[in-house]
């Protein structure tokens, strides 16, 4: 600092040192699409239909359609109803979204016929509280749920298994892993599956990878669902991602043809981040992604900016736009795994404010990746929430009486499932002749926090073992057999039960998860029936009793003791 610099007050120095000032903020640049949802460069709504075919969409004639326009016009929008629906004033549609007396089905029906610009025009009228009101009604599944990341900075499979087990026990309905070194994938996918089923039977697992490899692991039954099927809002970025709406639609059918649950992924900011937003706002482009997903007939979408959250997070109104994109996915009748899955801010207060628009109304998966490992071990580059936030999360659920999908679990139970997961994985690796897992590693897994608490693995041997899983054609069924032979009968049964779900296809329906009794719960048998105060999902009864428990609660009966 030089002598000429003006003197700051002590208050300014204190404010300068606050974590929020480590976050990056940028000015809007609407011409390049660096703007959340209010841009003069977005098209005006409009649609024209001839002979049952959309010939003009948001001011663009069919001859000038890019492939997103073509796909959306031909597959996503209900052409017969389009002209009438788009003629309804946006404010009326926005009011229907908020008004509890307009039923979900009715609002979904009109939504099927709207163009991207019309949808944007509607949500631009809504403030963040109205967006939450609408989300409460439009979420497809009645019961909210949550999803976790279980990864390791060292790609350590024992860590992934133990943290998957703990996460499953705490209540996550889905678990996701990914890699530092991609070639490790088969081992971590196995670890996640075995650990998850050791924690709570029926938890669904996935491994985020390049599309073709992810499909292969799914086909083999090593993973239960897939989510990293990215779609983008402009043609050029879609092509940069090496896909088109047709390749992705084919992929959606390929997954369903093997009985595997799948959702697409998209989010505000990805196009501008990849450098070609074609001068459209982030939310306008995201709406195109959502419509493309519906057109492809995929059951759901992970959105809420996801890996690009730093972009909408850096511009004015960005987090409102993120809440709006989750709402639109639900409005378009898709399962919505609603973000909150990437490191977002240095400020704990800002991390919480980013979360409330999904936690308060509830979504199909409030986080599409709550870090069930310490954030430094999170190979999705960190989440908005991690293991160190478990008690805060549980307390927020209890304070506000909202269900964010998790619960407090006693330490003794956690240690038990961590050990079981590590032992089960040890048995599977031994049965399948993969790299051995020592008793010392198992013991480390029981008490560990992060990857530094585990003995180092022989990375090259693990990578060879991972390759051999692929070369030998090991399947989910082999894992069942290995678990059974290794003496983990209940874990084997759990995994077999998950694999059996493929035969029925029940998990292919919108927003499907599996209960602990292996009953599929989807937007068909658990359809959201919110209709105003006193209706819809209410946190009450046995579940509310569970969520009243925290690590430290003073006993009313004997105030000298605690209950937990």
């Amino acid at each position, binding site marked *: 600092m030089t002598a000429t610099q003006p003197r700051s007050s002590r208050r300014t120095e204190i404010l300068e040192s606050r974590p929020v000032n480590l976050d990056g903020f940028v000015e809007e640049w609407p011409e390049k699409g660096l703007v959340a949802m209010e841009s003069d460069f977005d098209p005006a709504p409009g649609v024209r239909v001839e002979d049952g075919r959309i010939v003009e969409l948001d001011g663009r004639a069919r001859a000038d359609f890019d492939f997103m326009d073509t796909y959306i016009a031909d597959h996503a929008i209900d052409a017969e109803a389009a002209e009438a629906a788009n003629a309804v004033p946006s404010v009326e549609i926005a009011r229907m979204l908020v008004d509890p007396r307009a039923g979900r089905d009715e609002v979904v029906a009109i939504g099927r016929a709207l163009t991207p610009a019309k949808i944007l025009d509607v949500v631009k009228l809504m403030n963040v509280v109205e967006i939450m009101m609408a989300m409460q009604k439009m979420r497809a599944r009645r019961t909210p749920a949550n999803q976790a990341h279980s990864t390791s900075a060292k790609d350590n499979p024992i860590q992934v298994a133990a943290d998957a087990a703990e996460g499953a026990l705490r209540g996550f309905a889905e678990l996701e892993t990914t890699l530092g070194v991609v070639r490790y994938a088969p081992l971590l996918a196995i670890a996640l599956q075995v650990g998850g089923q050791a924690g709570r039977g029926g938890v669904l697992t996935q491994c985020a990878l390049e599309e073709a490899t992810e499909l292969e692991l799914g086909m083999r039954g090593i993973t239960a669902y897939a989510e990293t099927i990215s779609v983008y809002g402009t043609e050029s970025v879609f092509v940069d991602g090496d896909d088109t709406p047709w390749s992705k639609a084919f992929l959606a059918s390929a997954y369903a043809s093997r009985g595997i649950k799948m959702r697409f992924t998209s989010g505000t900011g990805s196009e501008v981040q990849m450098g070609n937003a074609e001068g459209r706002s982030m939310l306008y482009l995201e709406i195109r992604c959502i419509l493309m997903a519906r057109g492809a007939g995929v059951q759901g979408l992970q959105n809420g900016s996801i890996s690009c959250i*730093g972009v909408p997070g850096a511009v004015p109104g960005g987090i409102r736009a993120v809440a709006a994109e989750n709402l639109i996915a639900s409005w378009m009748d898709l399962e919505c795994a609603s973000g909150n899955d990437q490191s977002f801010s240095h400020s704990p207060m800002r991390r919480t404010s980013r979360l409330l628009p999904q936690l308060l109304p509830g979504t199909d998966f409030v986080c599409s990746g709550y870090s069930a490992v310490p*954030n430094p071990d999170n190979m999705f580059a960190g989440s908005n929430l991690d293991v160190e936030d478990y008690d805060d999360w549980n307390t927020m659920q209890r304070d506000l009486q909202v269900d964010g999908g998790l619960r407090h679990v006693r330490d003794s139970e956690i240690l038990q499932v961590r050990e079981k997961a590590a032992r089960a994985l040890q048995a599977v690796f031994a049965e399948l002749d993969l790299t051995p897992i020592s008793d010392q590693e198992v013991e480390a897994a029981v008490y560990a926090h992060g990857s530094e608490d585990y003995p180092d693995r022989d990375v090259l041997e693990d990578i060879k073992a991972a390759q051999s899983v692929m070369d030998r054609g090991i399947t989910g069924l082999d894992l069942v057999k290995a678990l059974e032979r290794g003496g983990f009968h209940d874990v084997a049964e759990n995994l077999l039960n998950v694999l059996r779900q493929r035969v029925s296809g029940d998990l292919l329906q919108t927003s499907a998860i599996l209960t602990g009794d292996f009953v599929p719960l989807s937007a068909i048998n658990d359809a959201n029936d919110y209709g105003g105060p006193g209706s819809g999902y209410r946190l009450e009864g046995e579940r509310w009793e569970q969520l009243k428990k925290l690590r430290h609660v003073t006993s009313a009966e004997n105030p000298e003791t605690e209950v937990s």
Partner: protein
Amino acid sequence: MTAPAAERTLTLNEIGPAKRGSRPDEVVVAVSPAFADPFTKTIVDVPHAEVIRQILAGIEEQGVTARMVKVWDTADLAAVAHIGARLSGSGISIGLLSRGTTMIHQRDLARLSNLELFPQSPLLDAEVFRRIGSNAAQYAKGESPAPVPTRNDQMARPRWQAKAALLHLKEFECIVAGRKPVEVEPVISRR
């Protein structure tokens, strides 16, 4: 910010259209349109001259030759790296974006796959670039090096992502659609 007295600058002199190499012991270093000109440093101010110096040193210390290519018609890292890999005699390439994001790629892999990816440009320093060069050279020799340890700072996103997007937008403006990759000679000079 004042530049150190001995700061190096990088110039990429164009040699001609990039061709598929015949030497089985070469690594192609493929850079994006704005690399070295108009941009001069990564998102965390590592000079491009230093990035290239370290990568080339890492390759050469393994006894492998390096060839540099500038890609003009895309600023997508996987595409830049894969174009490099397809031009490489060994099939191995290092792809680089101006802000520092790096990937080691191989010709026979799917474009969106890779051997090693270093997605967090704010965490890449001189030492990491040298190790990336060394690992790429070892792949070119048919060896299986231990991957360069992936750094992971979960707070890089909130700090840097939007700036990265801005840099990328500026890089995108340097794309020349349809222009083929050009072989370049790196010249590092002291200012």
